[in-house]
Each structure stands twice: as C-alpha cells, then as structure tokens.
C-alpha cells in the first residue's frame, strides 16, 4: 500500500508542507510563489518515494484544479461584492454605524465582527464566505488589514464543524459510522472549548496582553453564550443548526447587550446612528443573508441543488499499490446553490438597488472590475497551486503516511495528536468536511487499536479540522484577497498559526484527560 513508515519517509512526506510553512512564514513569500514551488516538491517526492507515475500526477493535479473552481467562484464573487459596496460609498456608512453601535470600542468591534458575525455566517453558508464578508468590514472600520484577516480566520474556525448547516459533522457521522448521540456530545464539547479560547486569542492578536485585559469580559460573555447555545442546540435540538443559533446569540450579546454594560458603555449615545442610511448601505449583506437563508433553509435547496456539475476521473495506483478509486462526479458543484452563485446574485441585486437609489453610476463599473482583477489574481494562483499540491499528496499516499506515522510514533499520547491530524487534513484540503472524509475512519480505527474512545478521538478529529480552517492556505489566500493584502499571506498565516496551534493543543490535552482519566471505558 505505502512505503514503510519510518522517520525518514515521514519527513520526506512532510517536506512539501514544511516548505510552504518555511517559505511563507519565515521568508514571507507570497502564497502563489510558495505554492508553485511546493507543487514541484510534492510531485518529486510522490514520483521518487511513493511510486507515483505521470498519470497519477496528472489526474491529481487536474482534481486539484477542479476543486478550486468552487473556491475561486466565492473569491471573485466576494471581491465583486466588496468593491461594489466600497465604490458606492456604503462601506464608510457601515463603518461609521458599527463604530457608534459599539460606542467606538475597538475591542467589541473586533470581537463582534471578527468572531460572532463570521460564526453566524459560517453557520448558514460557510465555505469561506464568512471570512470574505467579515474581514473587509473590519478593514472598513480601520483595523490593520493583516489583523482583520487573521481575526476573521481565527474567529470562524471553531464554528466550522457545525457550520454550513452541519456538513462537516454529517461527513464525520457517515465516515466513522459511530452513533450520533455520542459524536454530537463530544464534538460539541471540544468545539466549545475552542470557542472559549478564540475570544481571548483575538484580543491577544489585536493588542497583546493589554487587549486581553480590555476584552476578557466581552470574550467570556460572548464565548459562554455561544458555547452554551452550541451545547444545548447540538445535543437537544439539532447539531446541524447549532452554529447558526450560537452565532445569532453571539451577535445579540456582543452587539446589543455588552455595549450597555458598565464594562463597555461609553458616554456616546449609541442610538443616534442614522439607521436609514445604514440599512441602505447594508443592503448587499441583507440580500446575501436573505438569499442564503432562502435557499439553504427551505426546500429550494433540494430543488435547486439538483443541477450539479462534476468531472469523472479514472482510478490511479502507485507502484506501491496505493489505490485511489475512480470517481463518477468528483467534487460536484451545485451551480444554483453554491455560495458563489448566491454572492453573485446579491451583487446583481445590490447594483439594481443602488441604481434605483441613485448611488450607482455607470462609470463605476470599470473601476470595480479593474479593482477585482487586481485583488483576486494573486489569490487565484495561490489557491490553484496549493490545491494541486494537496491532491498530489493525497492521491500518492503521502497524507495517509503522515497520519499513520504520527499514530505510530505517539501511541498513548494519541488523543493529544488526533486534533492535529484533523488540522493537517484541513490544511491540505482547505475543508473540515474533506478532512473528516479523509481521516474520519482512520481516527476511529486508531482509537480502537489503542483502546481509546472512538467518540472522543473522532470528535477531536473534527475539532482540530475545524480550528485548522484558520490557517489553510486557501482560506488565507481568500482573506488576503479581500483585505487588499495579496502577496502578504505569510504575514497572515504567521499571525494566526500560533493561536491555532495552541487552541488545537489545549483541545487535544482535554481529549487526553477525558480519554484516560475521566472516561477511560468509554466506547
């Protein structure tokens, strides 16, 4: 199946990832540059050590490219939305209103717009849309673009497992075959731990220890309210809507309750904002939310979701016998319900609306398109090269060897490492769902072998994959595109990587304690 798992083969399999991290975080190379070189590295290692032939490399690269259609559609749509809103001057109005609503408190703004708002958006839509929408809002409020990008990335991570109406969680359930009751319980526990750590992380990221001191009360209020909602909804109502509802609760607590408490109340009258012009400026986002809710939370989703486009790919096999089965429709895109289409729909409706109220002028069109082109091209290349590299690694067995090697080396400490394997899956695929599909069954099997609880280890997998969304090259490229920092992906990933690793480690340690000390006999 695979080359024998040794430290040497593990390190070689890790080489393309190490190269990306080194080039982007240490040498501060752009994502496209690092991704281009890493594709060569992945192909070289796959061919020389893993026995991949030209057919396998070609099929994997094609799969990687095809996968990007989905995310590129979101990136270009989000850039269009952002530039339309900016060009008509709506962003200034939105920024001004948010400043007033939060009494000008920067910490509340970054916690609400960088944590609660993306969590809500992740709940209903996901797939990077939350980062694409919330990060530019933070930039519009005057936050440094790198901080805005890193905050939105970190802020949405915890909610990914139950986000997109539970698609990642559903993948975990189907891949592991474990009972839903136990999975929902443990998954919700671990993502809530991640949630509670996210608020303080954003405070630290923004203003260091001073920021933590200023924002700790808000972090606790928002974190506990979103966490409690997640626990209750996931276990007593439905895990599939827990991110949506916890996001709503977080928005209410952060945007309406906290500004009226003694910790964050200011002398400014928070009711004086010009609500009419705000609602007019915010119309594109209302339209996007209406489209998302209208399509995803109604039977329209099933009806429109039937129009899918996908490519078929032949089976591949390495010289070592690592087989990837043929697929009839690889990574299908539901043309009418994919987030990119909804964003594009919101853009078109917004332009019609702005035309009607006299805010849109014909000469703005060329300005918007040239801005979109300038901002989205670097992100496009980053996403393409990274995705091709990731699928080459997966289809040649390198990713599987990395996971198996890690399980071999760690043994009883495995629960600590389990979320990192989930994170690795997210890093490679850019998706919690794909990570769960890739490693869900593997994590369950390792848990059984080591005598650990399948529920706990599988939940650690999805929690790590969820948090790992904050550092996936594709999401980082998306956030850099929408904050106008294309080419500075390395800075964003450096800023969010430390917090992501610490959160994942703490989740893993909690899993270890639960596995061997609190619930040792759990199935």
């Amino acid at each position: 199946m695979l080359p024998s798992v040794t430290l040497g083969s593990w390190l070689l399999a890790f080489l393309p990832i190490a190269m990306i991290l080194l080039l982007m975080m240490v040498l501060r190379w752009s994502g496209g540059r690092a991704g281009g070189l890493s594709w060569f590295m992945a192909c070289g290692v796959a061919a020389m050590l893993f026995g991949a032939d030209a057919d396998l490399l070609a099929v994997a690269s094609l799969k990687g490219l095809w996968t990007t259609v989905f995310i590129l559609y979101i990136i270009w749509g989000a850039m269009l939305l952002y530039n339309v809103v900016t060009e008509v001057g709506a962003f200034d109005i939105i920024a001004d209103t948010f400043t007033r609503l939060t009494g000008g408190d920067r910490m509340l703004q970054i916690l609400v717009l960088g944590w609660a708002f993306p969590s809500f958006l992740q709940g209903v839509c996901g797939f990077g849309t939350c980062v694409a929408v919330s990060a530019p809002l933070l930039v519009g409020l005057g936050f440094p673009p790198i901080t805005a990008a890193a905050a939105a990335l970190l802020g949405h991570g915890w909610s990914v497992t139950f986000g997109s109406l539970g698609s990642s969680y559903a993948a975990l359930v189907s891949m592991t075959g474990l009972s839903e009751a136990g999975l929902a319980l443990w998954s919700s526990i671990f993502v809530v731990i991640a949630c509670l750590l996210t608020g303080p992380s954003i405070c630290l990221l923004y203003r260091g220890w001073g920021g933590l001191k200023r924002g700790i009360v808000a972090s606790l209020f928002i974190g506990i309210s979103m966490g409690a909602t997640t626990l209750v909804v996931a276990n007593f109502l439905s895990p599939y809507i827990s991110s949506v509802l916890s996001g709503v609760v977080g928005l209410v607590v952060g945007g309406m309750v906290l500004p009226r408490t003694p910790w964050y109340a200011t002398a400014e009258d928070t009711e004086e904002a010009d609500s009419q012009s705000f609602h007019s400026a915010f119309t594109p986002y209302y339209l996007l939310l209406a489209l998302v809710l209208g399509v995803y939370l109604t039977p329209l989703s099933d009806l429109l979701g039937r129009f899918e486009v996908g490519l078929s790919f032949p089976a591949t096999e390495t010289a070592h016998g690592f087989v990837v089965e043929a697929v009839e429709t690889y990574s299908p895109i539901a043309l009418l319900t994919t987030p990119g289409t909804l964003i594009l729909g919101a853009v078109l409706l917004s332009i019609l609306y702005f035309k009607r109220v006299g805010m849109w002028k014909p000469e703005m069109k060329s300005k918007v398109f040239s801005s979109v082109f300038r901002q989205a091209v670097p992100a496009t290349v980053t996403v393409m090269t990274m995705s091709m590299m990731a699928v080459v690694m997966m289809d040649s067995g390198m990713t599987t060897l990395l996971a198996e090697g890690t399980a071999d080396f760690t043994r009883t400490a495995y629960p600590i490492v389990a979320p990192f394997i989930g994170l690795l899956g997210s890093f490679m695929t850019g998706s919690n769902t794909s990570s769960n599909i890739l490693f869900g069954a593997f994590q369950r099997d390792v848990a059984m072998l080591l005598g650990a609880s399948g529920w706990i280890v599988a939940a650690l997998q999805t929690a790590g994959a969820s948090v790992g969304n904050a550092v996936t090259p594709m999401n980082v490229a998306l956030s850099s595109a929408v904050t106008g920092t294309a080419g500075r992906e390395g800075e964003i990933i450096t800023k969010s990587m430390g917090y992501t690793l610490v959160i994942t480690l703490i989740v893993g340690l909690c899993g270890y304690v639960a596995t061997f000390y609190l619930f040792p006999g759990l199935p």
Partner: protein
Amino acid sequence: MTKSEEKVGVARRLARACSITDNRKGLFLSAVVAWGNFAFLYWAVTAGSDLGVIAGLSICGLSCGLAAYFG
C-alpha cells in the same frame, strides 16, 4: 506628433501591454496557462494518451513555474 512618432508610440504601448514585467500579469498568465491546459490534460488522461499526459503535465509545470517566478 508625426506619423513615425505615432507609430513608435503605438509600438511602445503594444510592447508594454504584451511584456510581463508586472508580477500581476505574470500571475494572470500562470492562471491562463493552467486553465488553458486543463481541457487538454483532461482529454489526455481520459483518452489514455501517454504523450498527451507528459505534455500536459509539462505545461502544468510551466504554469507553476510562472507562479513561483512572478508570485
């Protein structure tokens, strides 16, 4: 502006438009090469053409090389 000066101006503009001194243009070219090659490589893979696969993979490499150079 005389006719010859005008011609030089046009040539300069053309050269500037075609030259890939700008990194963003280079990245765009990389994306165009990759997507242009997609259909060809997909055909080669599904038709089982070994030569096509090698050629398509080489163009894929060219696209990644452009990304690495201009990124």
